[in-house]
């Protein structure tokens, strides 16, 4: 250590040299605020400070700021940000040089600003993440609530979940004195509610993930079935006997009963029967999927699957195109019956609307990862604007798909009540455009399913064992449970509308309604700024969340 001093000491520079040496000694990877030598306004060439070059002085501004930072650091705990220099005080990353004790000065590479995304990319990332399979259930949801009420509820839920998302985004900022720059919402819950908060936010977040995975399994079985059927019929040049060739829309559950009766008497082609036996949507396909997907779940890292997220965008784009095409083909069939349903049309205001709110809670759900997504936004001051724009785009997409399918559903021959929770089910397996949609979605889901499994594994294993991959045995046990849940649902209760609304309302209760509102009210109370209108409004939010969940069971 003493040898290091000699090269640094030069004529009058002892004080400044001391400062620089001390600052490199406390090189902290977390904050480079404690390590800098000078900045641009009073310029120094980076040069070798060991040699006896006539040394230019470090600017006095820089060296006094260095002295302050060093002194203030002694006054607080290391993780305390109370006396940590704010961004506008420390120089730009381009102007920061690090002096090595024995050699040259070099520039700090890049900086956090280098990897930030422009607003467009952030908005797109949010839209992409939020667009899930719940888009397939929106027409059904609108049907359940009634057309007018459905549209109104969609807008209202969008605004409500946007506000709650804004609260989630703001929650780490109002925590005083602690560095919350790498906190996610469960960490905020842990700060306010202790272990209970952390555990419950984790549990509800996992509920949403598992719910999504079960829905995926049901849908994948569905799409695989239809794809297989299409290929089989194409190969054998069979046209669907019960449906004929010109029908573009089907009502699967009405005709299902008829098929049962027909099947016994008319079809005596044994190979067809054999195919139908081995290729059944609920009986066999869910099990075939195990062979494909269970191995994929056991991968240690999911970064391979993360490359396929673009498939989701393509699928949604194609769905939008498909919906537009079908609407043009079928035309609009809308009749407004306000409170009473008739044979073909449903009422505009129906009592089953909680089913729509349940679906929408999951459709607009991004609250468990919004902080992470927004972190890389280049202009942080635009966060709220970008979030609002993203929610607007998502809402418009859902509205477009929902309204068009609902309106275009040919009502004179069929009742609007026929609209399936998965609207692609309303099209026969022989429809080629829909076949492409199903194949695309199948492929996309196969790539997202392991990603969801990885996220669930990280959360559960991380909480229980502290390690993301404790052992192969632990991981395969978890995966078997998750897969079994999916298989059982696909076998016995393949109604994705119900699965989505129950899991949506459950996880939404905690992560969308209760925690954000409570956290906001508590932080206001601690600052002594909680006013009664605000308290009233946020309590109402919590009641709404509870009502949403209860409504799923009673309606």
């Amino acid at each position, binding site marked *: 250590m003493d040898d290091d001093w000699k090269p640094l000491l030069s004529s009058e520079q002892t*004080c400044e040299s001391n400062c620089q040496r001390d600052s490199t000694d406390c090189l902290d990877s977390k904050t480079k605020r404690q390590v800098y030598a000078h900045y641009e306004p009073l310029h120094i060439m980076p040069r070798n400070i060991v040699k006896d070059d006539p040394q230019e002085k470090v600017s*006095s501004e820089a060296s006094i700021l260095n002295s302050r930072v060093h*002194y*203030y650091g002694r006054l607080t705990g290391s993780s*305390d940000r109370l006396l940590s*220099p704010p961004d506008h*005080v420390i120089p730009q990353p381009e102007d920061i040089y690090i002096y090595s004790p024995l050699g040259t000065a070099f520039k700090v590479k890049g900086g956090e600003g280098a990897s930030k995304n422009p607003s467009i990319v952030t908005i797109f990332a949010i839209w992409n993440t939020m667009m899930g399979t719940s888009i397939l259930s929106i027409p059904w949801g609108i049907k359940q609530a009634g057309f007018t009420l459905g549209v109104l509820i969609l807008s209202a839920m969008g605004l409500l979940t946007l506000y709650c998302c804004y609260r989630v985004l703001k929650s780490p900022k109002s925590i005083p004195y602690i560095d919350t720059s790498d906190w996610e919402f469960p960490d905020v819950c842990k700060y306010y509610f202790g272990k209970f908060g952390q555990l419950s936010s984790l549990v509800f977040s996992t509920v949403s993930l598992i719910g999504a995975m079960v829905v995926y399994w049901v849908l994948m079985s569905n799409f695989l079935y239809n794809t297989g059927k299409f290929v089989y019929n194409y190969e054998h040049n069979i046209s669907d006997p019960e449906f004929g060739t010109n029908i573009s829309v089907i009502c699967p559950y009405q005709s299902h009963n008829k098929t049962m009766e027909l099947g016994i008497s008319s079809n005596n082609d044994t190979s067809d029967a054999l195919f139908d036996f081995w290729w059944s949507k609920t009986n066999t396909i869910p099990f075939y999927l195990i062979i494909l997907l269970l191995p994929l779940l056991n991968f240690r890292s999911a970064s391979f699957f993360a490359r396929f997220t673009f498939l989701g965008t393509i699928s949604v784009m194609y769905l939008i195109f498909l919906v537009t095409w079908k609407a043009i083909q079928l035309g609009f069939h809308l009749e407004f019956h306000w409170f009473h349903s008739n044979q073909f049309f449903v009422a505009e205001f129906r009592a089953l609307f909680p089913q729509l709110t349940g679906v929408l809670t999951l459709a607009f759900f991004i609250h468990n990862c919004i902080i992470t997504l927004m972190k890389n936004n280049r202009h942080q001051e635009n966060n709220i604007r970008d979030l609002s724009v993203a929610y607007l785009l998502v809402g418009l997409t859902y509205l477009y798909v929902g309204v068009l399918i609902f309106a275009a559903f040919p009502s004179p021959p069929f009742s609007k009540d026929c609209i399936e929770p998965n609207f692609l089910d309303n099209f026969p397996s022989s429809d080629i455009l829909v076949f492409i949609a199903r194949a695309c979605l199948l492929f996309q889901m196969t790539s997202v399913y392991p990603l969801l499994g990885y996220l669930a594994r990280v959360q559960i294993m991380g909480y229980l064992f502290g390690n993301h991959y404790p052992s192969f045995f632990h991981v395969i046990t978890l995966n078997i449970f998750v897969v079994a849940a999916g298989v059982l649902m696909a076998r016995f209760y393949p109604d994705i509308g119900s699965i989505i609304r129950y899991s949506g309302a459950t996880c939404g209760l905690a992560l969308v309604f209760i925690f954000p509102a409570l956290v906001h009210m508590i932080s206001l109370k601690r600052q002594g700024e909680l006013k009664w209108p605000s308290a009233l409004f946020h309590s109402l939010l919590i009641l709404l969340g509870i009502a949403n969940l209860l409504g799923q069971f009673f309606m």
Partner: protein
Amino acid sequence: MSSTAMKKKVLLMGKSGSGKTSMRSIIFANYIARDTRRLGATIDVEHSHVRFLGNLVLNLWDCGGQDTFMENYFTSQRDNIFRNVEVLIYVFDVESRELEKDMHYYQSCLEAILQNSPDAKVFCLVHKMDLVQEDQRDLIFKEREEDLRRLSRPLSCTCFRTSIWDETLYKAWSSIVYQLIPNVQQLETNLRNFAQIIEADEVLLFERATFLVISHYQCKEQRDAHRFEKISNIIKQFKLSCSKLAASFQSMEVRNSNFAAFIDVFTSNTYVMVIMSDPSIPSAATLINIRNARKHFEKLERVDGPKHSLHMRMR
């Protein structure tokens, strides 16, 4: 009501969150322990038993944040708080959104001061100025200063703009201390004579507890304008280290081929730092000079004792 026997107070007041605790910690080198992080307004006064300028005790109060506390302060506790006050330092957060409220609290404090300690000196610090854009700082400060001067009548207040991220905080507190040292001009003249006699390059006089520079003499231009604050920071850090070993800092000598610096206790309120650029003068000589000067300066302080200074402060 003559209270030379009782401890006189320095009140550090301001709204919750205006930066008083950080300021106190920085000026007095107090470690801010984790548990004193408040999640709400301070419920009780924070006493700091620092011997500041000899006999003064620093009291830190939160004003506002919750209106019920204000009522508490200004009715039942009022006389208690505002009696025996030597100095009132009121901190305003320049970014505060509730200017009316801030001024209201400030006026309440002034009323209480007028009733209980009419001789107290009032200083207003407009704090967190680093959050204001550079080109607007002067303007905003001037506005605030005018408002505060107007509101403070008949008392007169001295206003400073401060930020912990530049030299303004140190300079403001140095000015405050300068105004509180009894017969400081005389000290300065004597200091200059002393420096010339011992042929020192520079002589600094620091306040004992905070190492704020009270006065200095330099025989030629020095390049680093921030050297006082740097020295203060260095010594305060050293004091923090010493306190970990339950030791207390008394004196220091730094010497190399180019200069010799001596930091030592001087009078009851002050420390002195002497810098000699002629290394051929032995340490012992300078130390004897400092010791002799000490006796002289102590006499100065004793002669113009507390009574005299009370007279000087009456308007």
